[in-house]
């Protein structure tokens, strides 16, 4: 079992400065005491969240005790993967949050979970078995918690009397009821024990507590061991963590920078992620790097941010100075993982000494967020989040700004805004900007464009010459197939397959947080029809997807499939979320595709072929080793294998390169030919035209346009 050996094999060198680098067994006392690394702190906070989430869930579900027992497992993972300092910080942060979520009881539960997690994690790290772990954790965590409990009830008479009275009352009630049905005899000895236990609470309470902790510890061990193995298999390997050169001395001078024959190979990887790259970045100017999935773009960004290449050299006058004033700033792909603060202003000043943020309002103005400083970041759209991340990066006046696919998850409007900001920075503010993208058209605003394939630079030049390479347009063949299918299957004589009649959806109705998502939506979809739903972020299109899949019963109106309510037919309509990983439950492609149904191998192979994934190559791959585009196609294959009446896809093309886009488009066309209707939800007008014969536009929860596509 490779749970705690991140340091072995693959993860070794990569993990040297990022998250999860600590092979805990080897951690010296010195490291135990040193401050937490950003990745450690983030994992502590998020695992604490997970522990609290499981406890809340436990309160809400009838068999919740089992879920609550699992609440310790995330903290065990934290304790196995990191130092006990991380567990302490995570537990205390979790306890603080618990107080606001569900009160003192959950604070105590969280604290106990933290103590138990440390004990169980010790057993797992030392590879003890179940019995030894249980016994030891009963004596360590169990006795600690028992003593704490004893002290608490000894000094708090109200709590003690009330709790003991409850036990007495419940027991006496049960005993009395048993007496009435003539079953008191066998319960007599138990009664004696209960009475003694309640009298000698100073002994019985701690002993019972320690034993209970032991039982939960055993359960935790049994769940945690296989969970950690699967977690390690899913998340181990090469994580291209950012490397700061903060510990080195010397002046900061990120640009001009010159890569000479630079390459990088992740430890244990079969081929280099980056090979023989020659590239120079001067002061100011916007450089665009364009390439498909896995072309080495992200590795290039990390090398520019300070990662030492494994071959070749990086020539700079000083150091990269990641995140330091005048140094290098990076903005990444996922908007919601970029923004750390709870409010816009807090995020902007995050990590800066108090008062060090000068001209915060000017920065917000620059990225078009002027006047929004007090908003909570959870209410921002993806484009706003990315622009906030850029503003936060700019607060350090960087010499080099690296944008690692920062536009990939945005709608066209958000993308345009971000590109405009990047271009202005390069021209008006003299910042060197390197923007990485899989969309060639984004190279148009750049002063230099670089194309990459398989870790190599294949072209450097002015955008117009380069942008032709690998354009993301559909091939003629699949376009013809799509349109043909649409024409042939648009029928009007039969009643519609799926129908929404004046559907309205209100989230959190009746609470202060009530929010209308849909109003008065009328919609019908025929067999084999291709419908495109266009809408911006927050327009209500996600709520529409949930209604179409039957996951949400409309607050008003009716949603019908074949004349019967949709929410009673969950599963008949397939739904592919934008983030495919949320839909993949098993470790490998083959086990994923056979999950939840008894499909034979032939069906699985066929559905993989239909989405353009070669079964021989993909069947036994781990889902976590796949790219986002491949994962999305595996999800689609899983949906196809179920033969749904309708397939709904939320942003199926976001982040896909052109060849992947083409296979998904072709798969959808084939689906429509076989009579299944497809609904593609997108904010991308251009791609959407290729996957349907009818388009509706949704805005503010209402259908604003319904038009045929030629």
């Amino acid at each position, binding site marked *: 079992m490779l749970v705690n050996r991140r340091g072995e094999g693959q993860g070794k060198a990569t993990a040297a400065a990022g998250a999860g680098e600590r092979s805990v067994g080897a951690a010296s006392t010195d490291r135990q005491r040193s401050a937490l690394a950003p990745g450690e702190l983030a994992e502590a906070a998020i695992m604490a969240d997970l522990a609290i989430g499981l406890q809340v869930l436990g309160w809400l579900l009838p068999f919740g005790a089992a879920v609550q027992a699992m609440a310790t497992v995330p903290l065990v993972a934290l304790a196995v993967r990191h130092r006990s300092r991380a567990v302490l910080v995570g537990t205390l942060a979790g306890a603080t949050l618990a107080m606001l979520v569900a009160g003192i009881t959950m604070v105590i539960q969280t604290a106990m979970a933290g103590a138990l997690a440390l004990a169980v994690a010790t057993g797992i790290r030392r590879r003890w078995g179940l019995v030894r772990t249980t016994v030891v954790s009963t004596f360590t965590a169990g006795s600690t918690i028992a003593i704490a409990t004893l002290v608490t009830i000894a000094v708090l008479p109200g709590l003690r009397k009330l709790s003991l009275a409850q036990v007495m009352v419940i027991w*006496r009630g049960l005993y009395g009821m048993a007496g009435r049905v003539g079953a008191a005899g066998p319960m007599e000895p138990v009664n004696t024990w209960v009475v003694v236990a309640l009298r000698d609470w100073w002994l019985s309470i701690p002993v019972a507590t320690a034993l209970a902790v032991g039982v939960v510890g055993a359960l935790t061990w049994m769940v945690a061991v296989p969970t950690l193995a699967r977690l390690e298999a899913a998340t181990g390997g090469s994580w291209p963590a950012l490397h700061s050169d903060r510990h080195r001395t010397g002046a900061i001078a990120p640009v001009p920078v010159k890569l000479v024959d630079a390459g990088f190979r992740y430890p244990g990887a079969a081929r280099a992620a980056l090979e023989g790259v020659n590239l120079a970045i001067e002061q100011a100017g916007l450089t665009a790097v364009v390439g498909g999935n896995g072309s080495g773009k992200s590795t290039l960004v990390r090398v520019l941010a300070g990662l030492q290449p494994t071959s070749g050299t990086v020539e700079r006058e000083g150091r990269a100075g990641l995140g330091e004033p005048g140094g290098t700033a990076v903005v990444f792909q996922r908007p919601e993982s970029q923004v750390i603060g709870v409010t816009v202003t807090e995020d902007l000043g995050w990590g800066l000494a108090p008062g060090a943020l000068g001209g915060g309002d000017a920065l917000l103005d620059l990225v078009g967020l002027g006047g929004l400083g007090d908003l909570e970041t959870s209410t921002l759209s993806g484009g706003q989040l990315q622009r906030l991340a850029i503003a936060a990066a700019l607060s350090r006046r960087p010499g080099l700004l690296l944008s690692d696919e920062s536009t990939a998850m945005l709608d066209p409007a958000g993308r345009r805004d971000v590109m405009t900001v990047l271009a202005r920075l390069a021209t008006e503010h003299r910042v060197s900007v390197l923007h990485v993208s899989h969309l060639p058209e984004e190279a148009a605003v750049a002063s230099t464009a670089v194309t990459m394939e398989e870790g190599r630079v294949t072209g450097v030049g002015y955008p117009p010459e380069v942008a032709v390479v690998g354009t993301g347009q559909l091939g003629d063949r699949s376009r013809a197939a799509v349109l043909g299918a649409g024409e042939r299957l648009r029928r009007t004589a039969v009643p519609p397959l799926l129908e929404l009649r004046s559907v309205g959806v209100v989230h959190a109705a009746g609470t202060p947080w009530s929010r209308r998502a849909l109003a008065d939506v009328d919609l019908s979809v025929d067999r084999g029809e291709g419908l495109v739903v266009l809408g911006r972020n927050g327009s209500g299109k996600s709520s529409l997807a949930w209604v179409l899949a039957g996951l949400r019963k409309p607050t008003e109106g009716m949603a019908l499939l074949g004349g019967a309510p949709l929410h009673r037919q969950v599963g008949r309509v397939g739904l592919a979320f934008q983030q495919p990983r949320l839909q993949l439950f098993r470790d490998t492609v083959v086990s994923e595709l056979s999950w939840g149904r008894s499909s034979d191998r032939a069906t699985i192979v066929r559905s993989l072929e239909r989405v353009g994934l070669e079964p021989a190559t993909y069947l036994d791959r781990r889902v976590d080793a796949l790219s986002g585009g491949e994962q999305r196609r595996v999800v689609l294959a899983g949906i196809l294998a179920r033969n749904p009446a309708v397939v709904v896809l939320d942003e199926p093309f976001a982040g896909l390169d052109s060849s992947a886009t083409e296979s998904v488009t072709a798969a959808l066309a084939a689906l429509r030919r076989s009579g299944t209707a497809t609904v593609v939800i997108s904010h991308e007008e251009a791609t959407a035209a290729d996957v349907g014969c009818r388009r509706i536009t949704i805005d503010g929860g209402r259908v604003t346009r319904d038009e045929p596509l030629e």
Partner: protein
Amino acid sequence: MTTQAAGPHGGDHGRGRDRAGQRRQPEVHLLRLVPGDSFVHRLWAGTRVLVLMALALATSINASWASIAICAAVVGGAVVAARIPLGAFPKLPGWIVGVFAAGGVVALASGGAPYVRLPGAALGLAGLLDWLRLTALAITLLIGSFLVGWTTPLSELAPAVSRMLGPLRRIGVPVDEIALAVGLAVRCLGLLLDDLQMAAAARRLRRPRAPLGARAAVQEMYDLLVLAMVLSVRRAREIGDAMEARGGLPKVVSPGRAPGRADAAVLAALVLSAAAIIAV
């Protein structure tokens, strides 16, 4: 932040409720601010937390009916002052109400003085009263903690933690790391719940009816746990990178705004209430 109890397994076991797969989906709102500008809203975040802790402590020392009444009056008064609408209160799942009711029946069966005379028998109420006392106290404190959530802007929590724990820095407690982790946990809880809700929905789509048997149910719960942990580790890495890109963790977390006069007044009133709770 909203989650639905129909979550990962969310009553998918049907239990004969509705074979077609329809189920009630009680929504839970965690850590959501009820907008307002009452004096409760304007207090320092730490004051509200201190009030809650002090009330819990005082009722743990003396949990008589009179002390619970005082505690309930303080909490109730604050709820009214903060103008919390009824809709904000979460709807309890049916089974919790059921457990409380069943407990009440058993407690009633245990009897004891005082007695009410019914035709034919005398009914001892002591057990039931004890049971009600615990229930009343639990509900009061629960509403108290909801109130802290309803009236605390999330961005004020981490600075308040930094200020409250500040003195512990001297004995080597990593106060700033804890405050940072609180801020981060607040930021990520909503993201995590959204992810979990989606994963649960995806599971329902794939297998609308839950598998029969405990073994399959456990397997599913376990799959979901693994998925949640994989997502969490990835999220942590992304956020770790984002923090690294901003120059690493800050050494000190700003303690935010200081408590004012209103806070002093509330804390003084709190000392009196706590003393009354203990004394009566």
